Structure formats: C-alpha cells, structure tokens
C-alpha cells in the first residue's frame, strides 16, 4: 500500500487543517507518512496544495501520481486531474464549485450540504471532507474522532459533537456513493508513529539542548522554528524576542550568549545576509551561537514560499575575515533534531558560530518516526560559573591555551571581569594592534580549534550497494528522495547514495573512506536543488574529486521520486 492524497484550493480554505488531520490519522494508525506543501506567498486566494503520501512501508519523498484528489476549487481540478493514478478519484462539491463532472473518477460529495445537515453549519465542510476520505479508503473513524475531541476540547462539547457528526456523515456518504472506489488499506496494527516537520524538529532540538533565548525577525520559511519555541516559552523559560531586524536579532542573541545562556537565531537567506556582520562578531568575540538558515530561492526576495539549496557557499563563506564555523545540513526532521543538539554542543564547546542549514522543503515536510532516542543527546555546560571561578586568581576571557579554547566565564557570577572586543584583542579582551598578539589570536581562534572541530564531523552516510557501480551524492533535504530512488533502481543496478549532513569542516576520509567508494564507480552523480552545483564545487575544492555528472533542479520545487528516478535512468542509459 502506497497512496497519495492531494488537497488543493485557495489559501484560507483550510487545506492545512484537512491535510494535517488526515496525516495524523495515518501516523496514529501506525502508517508511515510523508507530507509536503506547495503554497504561494499570499494569505488568501491563489492556488495551494497539501500532499500526503502514506504507506505501510517507510516513505520519505513525494510522488507525482495522486490517488485521491480533494478539490476545494475548480482550478484544482483543472490543474491536477492529469496527475491522477489509474484508480485515482477526484472528490469535489459540485454545488460549491458550480460545476458537475460526469467522467469516471469524479465523485461529487456535497461537503457544505452535509455539514449543514449534520453539524448545522457549513463551516464544518472540511470535517465532512476529512471523514469522506476515510470512508473512501475503507478506514475506521475512531482515531479521527479522538483527534477532533483533542482539537476542539477548548470549544466545548457542542462544537466537538457537531464536528464528530459531520465527520461521520461525510464518512457514511462516501461509503454509500463510492461504488467505484478500489483502495485497500491494511488493518492498522503497528504502534503509532510520531509526525514532525523540519522546523518543529529544529525547534524541539533547540528546546532539548537548553536553548533559552531566541531572537529573530519573521521570515518565511524559517518562522516555524520561532513559533515552535514561542509555544514552549512559558513552560520551559525561553525568552523569545522579535527583533526590529536581523542585524538586531543576531546581536541580541550574542548579548544573551555572552551573559551566560544558550542562544539561537534563525532566518532565511535574505535575513541571514543582514546577520553576516554579526556572524563575524560572534567569531571575533568567541561567543557561541546557533544560526538556522532555512533556505528559499533567491536572489533577493526570490520565491518566498519555495525551496532551493543555493545558500551553501554563501553560508560557508559569509563574514569578513577568517574564522572557524560549523555547517550542519540535516536531511530529515530526525537529523534536524539531533544536529541541532550537536550544533549547540559544538557552539558552546568551541565558542564558535554553528549553522543549521535547512530549506523550505525540509522545514515544511512532515515525516513519521518511531521516536527520538534522547539518550544520545549531549548536554554539557561548558561555561565557568561561580564555583568554578572561586580559585581563579587571574581570569582572562581569551586566555591562550594549548587547544585554543579559553575558559568562558559568566559575567557577574564572581569577582572576575569578562571582557571581549570586536577589535583584535589580548588575552584579557582589551584591544591591541601589535603583530605578535594578532598572530597568536588568529592561531588560537582558527588553527588550533579547527583540527579539533574537524574530528567532531561525521562522514557521509552510504545507503544501498556497498560496492556500487553508480553512486548518487547529495546533501541536506534531498536525503529522502535520493534514498527512495536508490530503492527504485537497486533492482536493476548496483547503486548507492552518499548523503552528507555535516558539510563544514568538510568530513575527512579517516572515519570512512568515501573517496575510494567514489573512485570505483562507473557513474557518480551529484544531486542538488540549485543551478550551479555548489556542493560539487565544494567537493572538488576539498577533495579534488570531480563528479561524472550533475542533476540540478532550480525551479523552486523539490525533486519528486518519479522525476529523479527518470533523470537517473536517462543518465545511466548514456553509459
């Protein structure tokens, strides 16, 4: 079983509500779910869709073929009817869109009329539609009823009851009229799975790493991280400050970090462009900070609600001067969770800026997981607080040490003064201009720390054949679609994926000699959601390795399984 449901309509019609609830029903039923959203940069109108793929096997990408299309407007039917699978059906409300379709595959369900009858209000039409989908799939209503009870608890029993009645009426109607429906969903037996998107996972990772301060300026598609942390602010004691601009956001986070708390900021490329000056400040003052850069297509405003992986080299090189940084690029929400924890750990341990490089696709796609094993989280406090400073007679914030890491005291916790400066400075933190100190400080900040940081970086993940003829290589959010493409092609070829989720410092081959794998292939392909193949350039610069070919997608949309598989077959055909 591997079905795809697409809900299309205008912004504001409640696509996310229907989609979100259905996805939850499937994940609670123990099915694997993958959802992705395609939305325009507007509050009302336009055309958006929400797509859910669910299966009894692992799924981690979107398919192009749709099995059930829920059309909330006429435009959805016109635009998406061509993507219908062989047994696919389109459900729509003929009275609402003022058009009747008699062709096979079309199923008119009067959402509004049923809502008025069962719930007394046409506002419950979306609940009717949700119930109808479950009826079409031949599933049970119990989990949906539970979810309705949870969601409407605050609105009282009356509203809850009416919504449940509407769901049931939609369900019953669909069962009655859907004579041509041919969907088989196995009995749910597996334990419920957790359903989480990339932004939520990044936020959860920050929360569970003890992040206490998040300052940002809202910018799609990064705002979800701020929203998640804001929703937990009261319970866990997190200060969320919406800054006047991104320049302020990063400087506020640096102030909070200097004062002794774990701090983070986030934005997309355009907002991060404003933070670049502050990034350099973090490096010079050796103030730990975690920065989430959730990419969207540029240049400038670009495509605000769409996806691209075109800020890799920007993030890698941003900031005047030379300094140490870490760039982590999660491929899944699970990786986003653990890598955000790693980001905080490395930022505090080495007193450096660490990036979570995500993108709109990862930010907004929901995945299912059995759970997150928190046993492996790292939560060490690297700061010197009052007790640790008791015996210290002379404290120097930027003391020259063997490994380049100076003791990081919390100001005000002892009689010691914590002094730092954006000017080049001496061990105490006071500005200097002499050449000798400058050299020592550069060596401390950069040359001494960098080899230690490099040892913390994990090599790429190999999936598929361990002696592959064909290797596809990518980073960040293409993980899921590449992995599934390997599954599709592995029947015919010895194929594997190399996925990089830790990009800088570039992983060495000491832990895993990925270069020898690449050296023994007939075809190596670099897959990227950008035009110029930024990772392939990075790979060549860092290792000297040149890919045989590249597959680049820069239309602002993610790769689909059919799309990527098709391109892979085409390349293999040329061999």
């Amino acid at each position, binding site marked *: 079983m591997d079905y795809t449901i697409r809900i299309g309509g205008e912004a504001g019609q409640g696509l996310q509500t229907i989609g979100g609830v259905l996805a939850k029903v499937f994940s609670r039923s123990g099915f694997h779910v993958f959802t992705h959203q395609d939305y325009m940069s507007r509050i009302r109108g336009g055309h958006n869709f929400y797509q859910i793929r669910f299966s009894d096997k692992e799924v981690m990408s979107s398919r192009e073929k749709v099995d059930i299309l829920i059309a909330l407007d006429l435009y959805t039917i016109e635009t998406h009817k061509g993507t219908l699978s062989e047994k696919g059906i389109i459900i729509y409300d003929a009275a609402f869109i003022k058009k009747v379709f008699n062709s096979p595959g079309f199923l008119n369900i009067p959402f509004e009329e049923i809502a008025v009858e069962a719930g007394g209000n046409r506002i419950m039409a979306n609940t009717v539609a949700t119930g109808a989908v479950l009826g079409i799939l031949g599933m049970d209503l119990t989990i949906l009823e539970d979810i309705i009870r949870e969601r409407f608890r605050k609105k009282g029993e009356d509203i809850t009851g009416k919504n449940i009645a509407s769901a049931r009426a939609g369900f019953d109607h669909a069962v009655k009229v859907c004579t041509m429906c041919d969907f088989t969903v196995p009995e749910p037996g597996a334990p419920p799975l957790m359903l989480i998107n990339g932004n939520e996972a990044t936020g959860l990772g920050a929360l569970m790493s003890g992040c206490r301060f998040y300052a940002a300026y809202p910018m799609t598609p990064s705002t979800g991280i701020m929203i998640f942390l804001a929703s937990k602010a009261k319970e866990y004691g997190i200060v969320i400050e919406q800054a006047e601009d991104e320049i302020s956001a990063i*400087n506020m986070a640096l*102030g909070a970090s200097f004062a002794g708390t774990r701090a983070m900021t986030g934005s997309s490329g355009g907002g991060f462009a404003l933070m670049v000056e502050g990034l350099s400040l973090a490096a010079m003052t050796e103030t730990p900070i975690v920065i989430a850069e959730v990419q969207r297509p540029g240049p400038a405003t670009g495509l605000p609600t769409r996806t691209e992986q075109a800020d890799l080299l920007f993030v890698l090189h941003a900031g005047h001067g030379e300094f140490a940084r870490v760039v982590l690029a999660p491929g899944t929400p699970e990786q986003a969770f653990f890598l955000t924890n790693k980001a905080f750990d490395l930022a505090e341990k080495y007193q450096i800026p660490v990036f979570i490089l995500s993108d709109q696709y990862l930010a907004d796609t929901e995945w299912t997981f059995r759970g997150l094993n928190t046993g492996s989280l790292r939560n060490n406090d690297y700061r010197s607080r009052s007790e640790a400073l008791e015996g210290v007679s002379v404290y120097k914030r930027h003391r020259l040490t063997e490994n380049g890491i100076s003791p990081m005291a919390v100001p005000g916790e002892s009689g010691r003064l914590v002094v730092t400066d954006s000017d080049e400075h001496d061990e105490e933190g006071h500005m200097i201009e002499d050449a000798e100190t400058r050299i020592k400080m550069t060596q401390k900040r950069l040359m001494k720390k960098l080899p230690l940081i490099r040892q913390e970086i994990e090599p790429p993940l190999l999936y598929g054949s361990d002696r592959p003829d064909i290797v596809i290589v990518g980073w960040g959010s293409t993980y899921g679609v590449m992995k599934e493409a390997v599954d599709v092609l592995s029947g015919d070829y010895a194929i594997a994926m190399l996925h990089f989720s830790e990009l800088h410092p570039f992983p060495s081959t000491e832990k895993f000699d990925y270069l020898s794998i690449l050296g023994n292939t007939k075809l190596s392909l670099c897959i990227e959601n950008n035009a110029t193949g930024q990772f392939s350039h990075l790979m060549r610069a860092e290792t000297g390795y040149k890919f045989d070919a590249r597959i680049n997608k820069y239309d602002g949309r993610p790769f689909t399984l059919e799309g990527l598989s098709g391109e892979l077959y085409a390349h293999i055909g040329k061999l």
Partner: protein
Amino acid sequence: MPTLESYEGQTPAWCPGCGNFPILNTLKEALAELEIEPHQLTVVSGIGQAAKLPHYMKCNTFNGLHGRTLPVATGIRLANHEMPVIAVAGDGDCYGEGGNHLLHAIRRNINVKLFVHDNQVYGLTKGQASPTTMEGVVTKTQPFGSLSEALNPMAMAVALDCSFVARGFAGDAEFLKGLMKEALNHKGFALLDILQPCVTFNKINTYRWYSERVYRIGDDHDPFDRIEAFKKSLEWGEKIPTGIIYRNSRPTLEERIPVIEETPLIKQLFSFKEAEKEIRGFY
C-alpha cells in the same frame, strides 16, 4: 565598597583635552557613589572614540560593532536582568548606524542606560558629518556643507515616549554626575545625551561654544509633563537646556516577560528530562 581606584583601567588613547576624559571620570565617580562593583556591571559599546571607554575603566565589557550596542545590551539584560547594563556610544554610532535599534529600544523600554558622547562629528574616521552635525557645516566629505537637518535626539526620544530623556555637558561634570546617577537609578530605558567637545575635528562646537549656551534646567520644569518636555526638547541654538527633560514610569520589558518574572534566565535550571514529554506531543 568600590573606590575610584577600583575602576582604574588602561590609559586612554584619546586626544589631550578630549571631552571624553571628564565623561569617563564622572562615570567612575557616579558608579563608586552608587556602590556598583566593577564585576556587577556590564558596559556595552560599539565603535568610535566613545566606544573605547570600557577599556579605560574596569567592568564586564562587550565592545561590539558600530551601531549595534543596544541589541547586545538588550540580549544581556534579557538573559540577566540583575546585571546593570550601560551602553556607551557616539552620535554616529547610535543616531546613525544604529538609529533603528534606538527607536526600538525606546519602544521596548529595556532597562539599559544609553550614554551618548555627542560631539556632533565623526572622530575616529577623522571629521565627517554625523547625524547631529549642524546644517551647513563643511567637512571633507560634505563639501557643500551638511545638507541634512541635524537630528534632535531629545525631541525624538520625547516623541517616542522614552522613559528617561536627559542631556548633560562634559564641561559641567558635577551636574553630569547627578544625571548619570539619576539615569542609573531610573527603572527603564534612559537616554543621556552628553555634549562633548571634539578638540581635533569640531572647530565649531567647542568648549566655549557650549559653555556660552548650556544652562541647567531648573526646578520649575516638570519632567513628567510630556508637552512641556517636548517644548524643552526643541530648545537649541542660543540656549541649550541640560538636565532631565522627560521621564515616565512605563513598565520595563524585563518586567513584562513572565518567563523572567522571578529569576534571571541564566539562573534558571534546565532539565531536558522534563522536556522529553514534548516528544509525545508529536504522536
């Protein structure tokens, strides 16, 4: 009890006769009289001659970027609101490069004291016009004279309902000390604009020029009266008022964030075991 010596820092690299010297000495005196120990205080500064001040005394110091003093100071206060935080900046730093941050720091009413060394010129970059340079003043980069109207920071701050608005003069140290102490004791954001002669690059607004014009605001002025304060803030030219122009009792940002109602953020313990239940919320 801290003494003046407790605050002794590095030897200043300012020009002889610079208006920054009396400001530095006055600040040390004010802090000593308020019994604030060096380690209990953080001074945030940016870039410019004024921004070097924290190195010339003793305190926790974050000497950051040009124009960015207030965001850093805000972050420090939100993380530890038991720590007094002074932001030191020049007129270019906080009225020019950091103008947006000033606007919003006033709105937030973060409990930071902003001391502006206002010499109406750029010193560190050697003599260009600043936002407070008077219209028509010719410099190497303003060959036709400064064509923009000079910013009136006092009027701007009153218009924004800034919770403490005052002006001092580096040539009247005793009065300045009183203003610094008032600002430090005030609960809320305080803007103290300090007229400070630049003996090297500003040949117009000299000690003499200021001395002939400044006067101390008398007891007849009610700083809680916003309309009167606005009138007072507009005075410039022949007569320049110094003293507290305006103040109010707006609640501070720190007071309004429930998360830090009782304990400063940095003293709140975090147990990630407790947060584990958040994972269950995703099922």
